[in-house]
């Protein structure tokens, strides 16, 4: 083997080794990756802890939750990890002090002694003794279309009726509106869609989350996906309890539509508010297991499967052939 070939193969192998060393970092056992983050849950109210039910094989030692500040003095949060579900046995708990909370959209890590439950199903929650300063992010399991992003104005009663048009998809499953001061536990909240030509009621969405919501994207879920939503103009009418305020801008309320989609990864059972499970959405979070797990590198090779050795061999042979090209050109000396 000539010198150029040796040099090139050595460089390739050394670089690949360094790269793989970096890829040896641990990988989360479970991660909800919804980037960019789109809908915040809103403030967490006393008695309405927010969490998620998930499945994970093997012990877990850390949970990261994506949190965003909503304004106001940082308030502490109580973290609880339970077996099975919201009513299960408490496995671990921790307190997040205001110092632990981020000043911008970021992960907050809660580490604890590794724990493993026989059923493999867990529930974690964040609770607050006062309306929280921070909110977790929500990933709704449907195709989203941002009609108007989170606005800066509190809109009056005049916007309780607005035109809903130019949605690019059919199968409308939910509308998320930016709302403040909504107590859906106290009074019903709904959105009704009318045909502007005939005035006929064509679809109705309700807030399934029966809890107070503030600075939140509130999800109005339709009983079944409404197929005729695509591009047509409709009139939307909001029914909100007194004191609820819609947020938006001069062109209308802040609004995200959600279409189609279906159940996500079988490891995720859904977000929870107090004792109720909302299987159509998840919090944005990740779970870390045994620190000695196979890591990103191990998973990559496992998923590459039988192709992995071929990739390695061809990679080396390609570089060697490149070196031989230099030798053939008599340039390597």
């Amino acid at each position, binding site marked *: 083997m000539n010198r150029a070939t040796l040099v090139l193969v050595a460089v390739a192998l050394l670089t690949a080794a360094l790269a793989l060393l970096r890829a040896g970092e641990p990988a989360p056992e479970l991660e909800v990756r919804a980037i960019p983050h789109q809908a915040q849950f809103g403030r967490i109210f006393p008695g309405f802890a927010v969490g998620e039910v998930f499945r994970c094989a093997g012990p877990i030692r850390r949970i990261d939750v994506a949190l965003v500040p909503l304004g106001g003095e940082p308030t502490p949060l109580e973290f609880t990890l339970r077996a099975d579900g919201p009513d299960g046995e408490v496995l671990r708990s921790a307190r997040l002090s205001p110092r632990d909370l981020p000043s911008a959209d970021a992960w907050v890590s809660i580490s604890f002694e590794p724990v493993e439950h026989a059923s493999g199903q867990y529930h974690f929650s964040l609770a607050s003794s006062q309306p929280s300063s921070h909110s977790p992010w929500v990933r709704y399991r449907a195709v989203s279309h941002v009609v108007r992003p989170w606005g800066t104005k509190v809109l009056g009663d005049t916007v309780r009726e607005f035109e809903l048009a130019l949605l690019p998809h059919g199968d409308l499953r939910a509308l998320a509106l930016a709302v403040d001061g909504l107590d859906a536990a106290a009074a019903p909240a709904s959105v009704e869609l009318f045909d502007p030509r005939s005035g006929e009621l064509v679809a109705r969405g309700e807030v399934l989350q029966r809890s107070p919501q503030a600075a939140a994207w509130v999800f109005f879920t339709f009983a079944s996906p409404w197929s005729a939503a695509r591009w047509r103009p409709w009139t939307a009418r909001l029914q909100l309890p007194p004191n609820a305020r819609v947020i938006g801008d001069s062109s209308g309320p802040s609004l995200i539509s959600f279409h189609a989609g279906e159940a996500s990864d079988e490891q995720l059972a859904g977000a929870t508010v107090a004792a109720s499970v909302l299987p159509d959405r998840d919090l944005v979070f990740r779970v870390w297991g045994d620190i000695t797990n196979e890591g990103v590198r191990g998973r990559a090779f496992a998923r590459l499967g039988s192709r992995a050795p071929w990739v390695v061999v*061809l990679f080396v042979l390609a570089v060697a052939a490149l070196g031989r090209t*230099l030798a053939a050109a008599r340039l390597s000396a």
Partner: protein
Amino acid sequence: MGCLHDPGDPFARARERERGATERSDRRRESVWFLAAVLLHGLVYWLCLAPWMGEDEPWHFEYASHVADGHAPWGNGRVEFSNTALQTGPNAPYDERWDHPSSQLQVRRRFATLSDEAIAARQAQILESMERHSFYARVDWTGGFGGRRDFDQIQPVFTATTHQPGYYLLLGAWLALWPGEDIDGQLYWARCLSLILYVLTCWAGLEFARAAFTDRSLALAVAFVVAWLPMHARQAALVNNDVLVRTLSAFVWMVCARRLAGVAGTREFALAVAAALLALFVKTTAAAGLGVLLLTLVLETRRVRDARRLFLYTAGALLVLAGVITYWHFQHSPVLPRNVAAFLLRIGRGLSSSAMHELATTWIGAFNWYSRPFSGLEYASIGGATLALLAGGLVVLARGAAGVSRSTLLLCALGVLVQLALPVLRGVGHGRYLMPALLAISALLAAGAVAWVPERSRPRAALALACALVAYDAWFLWAGLIPSEYGVWGA
């Protein structure tokens, strides 16, 4: 010793012949090893790139698969809408887009013989394959969940069928060679064509470099850049009309370099013109090819002093361009702006720092449909080195260097500028839109790395450049592509 240079030496001609034969043999061996390296390198990416991980691959594949099924892509499909904006309000007139996903209507417009059911069924088949191959776990902006029913639910109002049919006719004919394959099988065969086109491009790159640079170290350095630039090598494994337009453009560049070197005759140049015209029926980013041909004639005219002929060529090129733009208009190409305001808006967007940032990062390396980038440090290191080499190439152009054709290097610099203008005019900056000028960019980079050192040190400089490229490629593959596509999945 004197007899070596003696013209009357009866053995001089024989020695000359022997030297020529040795050179040809060296060159042949060099080409064989280089193409073997290229093929092996392409195979690495062919094996690594997960199904549907090429940007916009489902749409390009969908288009070609209908051609493979025997449907002619000449347009004229019946649709009851134009490219006008949808109307809102209670008196909005009926629009067919209310009842059909836009992506499917646009397929119907392209294929007059396709039924709505067949279009929907094909999208469903592809979406099923995408879900089975964990597409949503890999591409972060999809949200991570499946259950999509049409292509609009991945990217609304998007289609490949507004592209000219050149690539899809070739790929469709290629796929028709393997009837009975399921969607996964067809995808693999489609990617085989990309692998072949990658090898052809690299071969064109080698021949281009040999014409542009008489210095063998420099010529090989150019070919190495062409073959080992990771985002280019990755194109060996993805289904996209960019791969064909790049290969055709590489052929045009090769002939232009040979023309300037005085090797290519009129017939060869006519073939390049034909390739450039053909490329216009593949993708709009090929438009720069006409400029490259014209610039070649301009640079050549300095020698032949035939300004009148040049004027005729220019007029001809403009006429062709006007004709092609008209054709694009009737093909509903989104490349053409609707009005002056939209055009100005696009230029502003194309020149914005975010567009330039995206152009640079997607040229250097970004994974999983650009949803997982390299780190800032990695971009700064690789981007900084690339810019330094480009600057070096321009210095070589200004000052000249042994073994370097300055006219070809000037053509490269101008050609890159013309190519760069296209994404700016479109207002969208993706690195792959610069691939038609890959050979020119490679020439400038290689000149910046190798040409400024004394001739005797150039083999070492070429080896150093090869080391840098191999390291870049290894990092791209093992720290970028493989961990992103296989190591980290969302739920």
